[in-house]
């Protein structure tokens, strides 16, 4: 699969769907923390739906898949599958590749990494804040 493939990932997507390719570059280099947080929000929103999480799980099991094949595996119609794939594409989690009359979908997990990074950063910040709170209240109770 060459990099010249057409991708619909950036089509009409929100800020999370910056036209960043999943292949070739592992670092999300010039992105600010703020942009990363925005992407995390879109990713979490996309994955809030249980059916979409099943679609993502199905996509992790093979390089590419068609909407029809997915509809055969999941208890939903092909149209519903297409809708979920489009929502995932808007969050930058899925890219569409057109081969002749067929559209094949591929998981592009970079935004997931961004979301995980947001969780790690926000979690570490709370750990620091809560340690300060604990120390403060401990001082109080010793008085």
């Amino acid at each position: 699969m060459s990099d010249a493939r057409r991708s619909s990932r950036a089509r009409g997507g929100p800020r999370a769907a910056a036209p960043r390719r999943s292949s070739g570059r592992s670092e999300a280099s010039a992105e600010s923390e703020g942009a990363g947080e925005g992407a995390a929000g879109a990713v979490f929103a996309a994955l809030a739906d249980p059916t979409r999480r099943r679609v993502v799980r199905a996509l992790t099991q093979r390089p590419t898949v068609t909407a029809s094949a997915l509809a055969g595996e999941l208890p939903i119609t092909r149209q519903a599958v297409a809708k979920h794939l489009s929502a995932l594409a808007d969050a930058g989690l899925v890219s569409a590749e057109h081969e002749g009359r067929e559209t094949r979908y591929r998981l592009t997990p970079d935004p997931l990494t961004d979301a995980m990074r947001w969780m790690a950063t926000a979690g570490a910040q709370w750990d620091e804040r809560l340690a300060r709170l604990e120390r403060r209240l401990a001082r109080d109770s010793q008085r």
Partner: protein
Amino acid sequence: MAIEDQAVRRELMLAVDRERAWAALCDPHELATWLADEVELEIDEGAEGVLRWDTGEERLVTVEEVQESRRISLRWREPGGEPTIVELTLDDVPGGTRLIVVEMPALALDAAYGPIELPSGDRWGPRMAMAAPA
């Protein structure tokens, strides 16, 4: 990935009673000793303000909900960033008070539960700490 997996969630046992713990959450001077380095915010529903850290970081804050001695919900964001919802909840437990902190992107919360329109025109989601496992 359930909703609670998409949130940062922390639990802390505080060796003080709930009244003392509440003071640490709702008094700006107290907040400036642990939450941020500089607190320009009153903990009143609808209040807006700014938190600053010595690192140069800054968050613009809206107080979404205040339940006296029980819960504070904030919506905050870095300038130009996406908002997240922060919920601080206190519970009585033997020997002290339990503080539960939940933070998650506002977008994810709205998607999971759908926003609620408040009479003020603001939108608000669910009780996150309630949704998370005890």
